[in-house]
C-alpha cells in the first residue's frame, strides 16, 4: 500500500470543512459531537488511501449493470 497519499485521495478534513460538509448533507450536530464525527470521517477517508493504488491501470469504469426497466405504475398510483 502507498505510504504517501495519491493525488486522487483527499487530505484529512478540518473542523471548518466539516461544518461545510454537514451543511451540504443537511445534518445538524451538537458542538460536542463534532470531534468524534470528524475523527470517524477521516478514518473513513483513510480507507480510500488503502484501495486507491488498485485503481491505477484498471480498465475504464464498469459499474454494476443498471436495469432501465420502468416499474409498473398504474394510473391510480400515478395520481397519488
Amino acid at each position, binding site marked *: 500500500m502507498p505510504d504517501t497519499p495519491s493525488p486522487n485521495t483527499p487530505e484529512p478534513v478540518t473542523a471548518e470543512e466539516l461544518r461545510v460538509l454537514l451543511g451540504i448533507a443537511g*445534518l445538524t450536530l451538537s458542538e460536542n459531537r463534532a470531534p468524534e464525527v470528524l475523527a*470517524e470521517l477521516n478514518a473513513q477517508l483513510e480507507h480510500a488511501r488503502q484501495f486507491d493504488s488498485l485503481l491505477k491501470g484498471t480498465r475504464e469504469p464498469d459499474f454494476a449493470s443498471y436495469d432501465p426497466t420502468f416499474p409498473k405504475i398504474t394510473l391510480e398510483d400515478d395520481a397519488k
Partner: protein
Amino acid sequence: MTLDLATITLRQAMNGLDNRDFSVFELTRETLLRIRATEPDLHAYVEVFEEDALKTSLYHDRAREAHKAWRPLMGLPIGIKDIFDIAGKKTLCGSRIRKDVDVAAYDAETVHRLRRDGAIFTGKTVTQEFAAGVVSAPCRNPWDLDRIPGGSSGGSAASVAIGTCLGAIGSDTGGSIRIPASVTATVGLKPTYGRIPLKGVYPLSPALDTPGPIARSVADALILYLVIANRAGEVANVDTMLEPFGSKSLMGVRLGVPASFFTDNIQPDVYASFVAAIDTLKSLGAEVVEVEWAEAPAARSVAALINRVESSAVHHDHIRSDEADLIDSHTRLRFEVGALVPGDLYLRARMAREAVRDGIARLYARHSLDAIVAPTLAATAPRADHLIVDLPDGPEDVGPALTRLTMPWNATGQPVISLPCGFDHDELPIGLSIIGKPDDEAGISRIAHQYETATAWFQTHAKAEAV
C-alpha cells in the same frame, strides 16, 4: 433417538421425526420450554412465537401421519433474525425508532422458502441495531454470559448454540454471520453475494448484504443454505455432497493459507488453534500452500467504505429526523459519517472492488486453489462490559477488531463457512474460515465437513445449566 436439545443437530432431528422417535409437537414443546428456561439470562429472542409454533407443529404432525408431500424442514424449529420480515410480525431491527412500525404484510423471500419447506419459526432473534455492529445487546454469549455473542446476528447464533432452535437465519454485510458463529462455536455460512434474495430483508448495505444460515453442524448449514437458495430438492443428497474426497478424506484438495494480514496481530490462542487446524487438514490429505494476498487490506477498506455510504443512504431520513436520538449513538455516528464521504470515493470503491475480485481470482488460478483457509476472527468474545479486544499490538475497539478478517470476503463476495476449531484459555470458542470460489458453497461445505468429522469441536456444546 432421544430428544436432547443440548446436543441434537437439525439433521438428527430430521431423522428422529422421520423415524417417529418423537413428534413435531414434542420437539416444538421442548424447544419452547428451553427458550423459557434460558431466555431470562440469554436474551437471544426479541419475540417468541409460542402459540404459532405449537399450532404449526400440530399441523405438521397431521401432515406426517397423512403422508403428505415430504418437505425437508417439516416441523424443525428455526429462528429468524429480526431484520427479516415475517408476515403478521413486526420487524423491529433492534431499533427504538421502529417500535411503532406496522407488522409485515409478507414473508421475506428467505422466510417464505423456509416456511414452504416446513420450518416452524420459534421467534425473532436479537440483532445489533439495523445489523450495524458486532455486540447484539442485550443478547449474551451462552459460553460465558459476561461475554458478547458477536453480531450482528448474535441472537441467531446464541439460540443455535444453546439449542433453543436447531438452525437460524442471519445476514452478513461485514461478518455478521461468521463473527457470532465463531464466538459461539456454531457453523456460519455466508453464501456467494447476490445469490440469496434480499426481498423483505431490512437493508444495511445492499451491495454487500448476504442472508445465510447459522447451524450446529456443517451438514445442517448446508441443508438450510439449499433451502434458502431454492434448491431444497438437493437436501436428500447432502450425504453424497459431503462425502470424503478419497481414501484420505481431503486427498487431492489444495488449500491456500494467506500470510501476514490474516495471521499478524491475532490473539496467541487463536493463532495456535489455527496452526493446529492446518496440521489436521494436512493429516487428512490436503495439500496446503502459503499464499500472499497483498490486496487484503484494500479489500477490507473497499467493503468498509461501501458499507458506510450505503447504510447512510438507507437511513437518510432517520438521521435527519427528530427521532435521530433514538438510534444508538455509535450506530448514528456511522450513518452520519457515511453521508459526508464524497460520492466519487464511493464510486472509486466500487471500481476497486472489481480490481480486488480480479486479484483474488488470479490468486486462486495461480495456485490452483480449491479454497483458502484463515482464522475467522483475530480474537475470542470480549466482555460485554468492556468492548475492547486485547491484541498483540495493543487494545482495539471491538468493531474493527472483529471485522478485520471478515470484511475482505464481503468485498470479494466469495462464499465462506466458519466452523469451530478450538477454545482459548478461558474456554471461549475459536473459529476457522474456509473461503471458496464463487458459487462453491457445496465445495467448502464438503471440505469443512471432513475437518469437522476429524475433530471433536463439533461435539462440544454450551451448557444451558450455566445460563
